[in-house]
C-alpha cells in the first residue's frame, strides 16, 4: 500500500519525541571528556630532561625546545610550540621518556589574535636555572 513507508517513518519520529534529549547545550553544559583526550599540551618542567625526542617525533616540526648545556648536561631553557600547525596526533607525548609532556583536557584554544596562537610552555628567562647560561652554558638547538 502506498504511504505505508511514510507512516512507518512518522511513527519513528513520533517515538523519538518522547525519548530523552541527547543534545548538550554547550557552553552551559559540557560533555565529559575521556582521560586520553588530546587537548592543549602541558609540560612538567622539572621532569623534562631536554632530550629533544618530542621535537624529533613531530611530523610537522611544531615543537622547538631550546636547550642549554651545563656540565655536559642538557637543561631546558625554552619550550615553544607552533600549535597552529599541530595535528594533535600524540606522537610527541608518546615519545617523551619521562612523561613530562602531556595532553590536558583543555580544548578551547581559539583566540582573537594570531600572535597569541603559538603555545609557550616555557619562555626563555622564565626558569631560575636559566642563569646557567650566564655561568658559561652554551645554547644548543635540539636536533642539530
Amino acid at each position, binding site marked *: 500500500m*502506498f*504511504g*505505508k*513507508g*511514510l507512516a*512507518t*517513518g512518522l*511513527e*519513528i*519520529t513520533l517515538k*523519538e519525541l518522547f525519548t530523552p534529549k*541527547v543534545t548538550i547545550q554547550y557552553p552551559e553544559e559540557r560533555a565529559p571528556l*575521556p*582521560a*586520553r*583526550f*588530546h587537548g592543549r599540551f602541558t609540560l612538567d618542567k622539572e621532569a623534562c630532561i631536554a632530550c629533544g625526542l618530542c621535537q624529533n*617525533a*613531530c*611530523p610537522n616540526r611544531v615543537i622547538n625546545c631550546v636547550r642549554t648545556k651545563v656540565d655536559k648536561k642538557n637543561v631546558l631553557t625554552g619550550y615553544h610550540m607552533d600549535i597552529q600547525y599541530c*595535528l*594533535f*596526533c*600524540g*606522537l610527541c607525548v*608518546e615519545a617523551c621518556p619521562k612523561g613530562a609532556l602531556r*595532553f590536558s583536557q583543555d580544548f578551547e584554544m581559539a583566540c582573537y589574535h594570531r600572535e597569541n596562537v603559538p603555545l609557550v610552555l616555557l619562555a626563555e628567562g622564565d626558569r631560575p636555572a636559566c642563569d646557567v647560561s650566564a655561568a658559561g652554558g652554551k645554547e644548543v638547538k635540539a636536533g642539530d
Partner: protein
Amino acid sequence: MITGTDLRDRLEHDIKTDRYVLNMGPQHPATHGVFRVVLTLDGEVIVNAEAVCGYLHRGIEKLAEARTYTQVIPYTDRMDYLAAMLNNLGYVQTLEKMMGVEVPERAEYIRVICAELTRIASHLISVGTYSIEIGGITGFFYCLRDREKILDLIEMISGSRMTVSYMRVGGVSEDLPAEFLPQVKKLMKELPAAFDEYDGLITGNEIFQARTKFVGVLNPETAINYSASGPMLRASGVNWDLRKARPYSVYDRFDFEVPLGRNGDCFDRFRMRILEMRQSVRIIEQALEGLPEGPFMGKAPKVIKPPVGEMYHEIEGARGILGYYLVSDGSPKPYRMHVRRPSFINLGLLSELCRGWKLADVVAILGSVDIVLGEVDC
C-alpha cells in the same frame, strides 16, 4: 500535409535542443566537499558528466617522502577522514608485511574492533547524507546521533574523534581503556534497533525508493572494468570483499556475510551500507568475545627502517579496496608512497552512471557513489 503522428515523430526525433554546459560545484552541498562536475545537457538529460577534482589536493603522497614512517600515520588519517582507523590499518599492515613484524593477538583484535567501529561510523555518514540528498533531512540526524556514540568510543581509545593516529607498526599505541568494553557492548546491543529505525525512516520510504530504484544502474561487467570496489561493486552483485576473499588480520576467524545487491542501482548501493553495518556489528561482537589478554604492541624496532624494496598491500576500506604501495630505499623515510584510494577510482564511473539520466538524478547518483573528497584528492 502533416499528420498528428508525423508531428509527434518529428518532435521526438528531429527537433532537439542545443546542448549546453552546466557547472555543478565546487561549492555544492551535495558533493560532500569541494568537488566539481561539468555537466553537458540536452534539455534535462545528461549527455556527459565530467568530474573535476583536485580542490582538496594536499600532496599527502609527496609529504610522506619528507617524513619518517611513523610520522606518516597522522597523514593517513586525513585521507579518508571519515574512516581514519581503516587508513591507519592499511598503512601499518603494509609496513608490517614489508618488515615481517609480528603483531600480538590482542592488538589484532583491537584493530578489528576499531576498524569495524569506524566502518559503521563512516557508513552512518554515507547513509545520513544520502537521505539529505534525496530530500529527507530527518534521517541524517538519526544517523549522526548514533555516529556520535561511536565517535565517543573512538575518542576514549585514541583521544581523538576522527583523526585518530591510533595504530602503530607492530600493534596499537595504547591498550583499550577499562571503561571501553562495557560501553561498546552496550552500544552493539543498541545499534541493530537503530538500523531498523533507518530502514523505517529512509529505506522504506516510498519517495526515497521512487528516486533511487532503478536509477543509475551499474552492471557487474562495467563495475569490474572500471575496477570499482566496496559497496559499489557488491551492489552490482559481485561477491568481492577482501575480508572474505583474501583475509588479512584475523578476519578469517569471524563469521559474517557479504551482503550483495541485485540491481546495481542507487537503492542497492545505499542498502549495501546498512546491511554492511549489521555485519560489522556481528564482527565486533565476536571480536569482543574472543578478545585475548596479552600485549598490545609487538616487537617492532624503534626506528622503522624497512629493507630496500617495495610492497603493495590492500585492505577492505569503508568505500572499497584501500591499497598502499610503499617503496623503501633503506632509509627511515619512504622513498615513494602511493595510495589506491577507493573513492577516487569509484568516482571514475560517474560519467558512465549519469549518462542518459535526468539532471535531478545526478545528486542521487553521486551520493550513492559515496565519495570523500579528502580521499579523492589525497
